């Protein structure tokens, strides 16, 4: 997995590539813990191959954190990742564009 960070003022974009699973989710979790000063968070999943529940857990904690600020949105979701969001109800929790 690879994470590309782009900070534009207080707007942070995390572009996640590869597999977000048990092995790699802790890396993203570290990024989520360091969101001081970030008002809006965009998760760009254009390069995301798949997500397992370990990745969903990180998304949920990011969502909870960002809901107290300017919010979080998820963009460029593939069909496979979208299916995971749908069966787990995450499609109702997340702002997906």
């Amino acid at each position, binding site marked *: 997995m690879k994470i590309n960070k782009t900070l534009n003022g207080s707007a942070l974009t995390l572009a996640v590539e590869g597999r977000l*699973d048990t*092995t790699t989710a802790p890396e993203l979790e570290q990024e989520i813990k360091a969101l001081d000063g970030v008002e809006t968070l965009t998760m760009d999943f254009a390069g995301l191959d*798949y997500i*397992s529940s370990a990745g969903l*857990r990180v998304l949920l904690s990011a*969502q909870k954190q960002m809901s107290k600020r300017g919010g979080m949105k998820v963009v460029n979701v593939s069909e496979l990742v979208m299916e995971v969001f749908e*069966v*787990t109800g995450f499609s109702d929790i997340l702002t997906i564009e």
Partner: protein
Amino acid sequence: MRELTLAATVENIAAATAFVDEQLEALDCPMRAQMQIDVAIDELFGNIAHYAYAPGTGEATVRVGFDEAARLVSLTFIDSGVPYNPLEKEDPDVTLSAEERAVGGLGIFMVKKIMDGMAYERIDGRNVLTIQKRI
């Protein structure tokens, strides 16, 4: 049918996945089904690594079978850790809001949804969990 036995650790999820993927590729498995199977391996091997032998360690076996006529792949996960039948686990409430959601409990539920079949047996002190996916 082929199988691989490994130390049940999070680090070995990648080796278990590579072992299964190699066989799926030989079967011309569509990429989408392969990704779904890989997610299931992450959940199930990960569960064994985290819980089966805690706080100790042990082994896990992954067995791959294929029914040619039905184009049905079977993956069996075997461990000799604490008895655990994931099918008895209650499904999480997927209609709750982010604030109400507990962090966790989704893995098994997701596997049930993205696979075509799931069965559990406790045989000779082992947990034997089989999932099936039509490819």
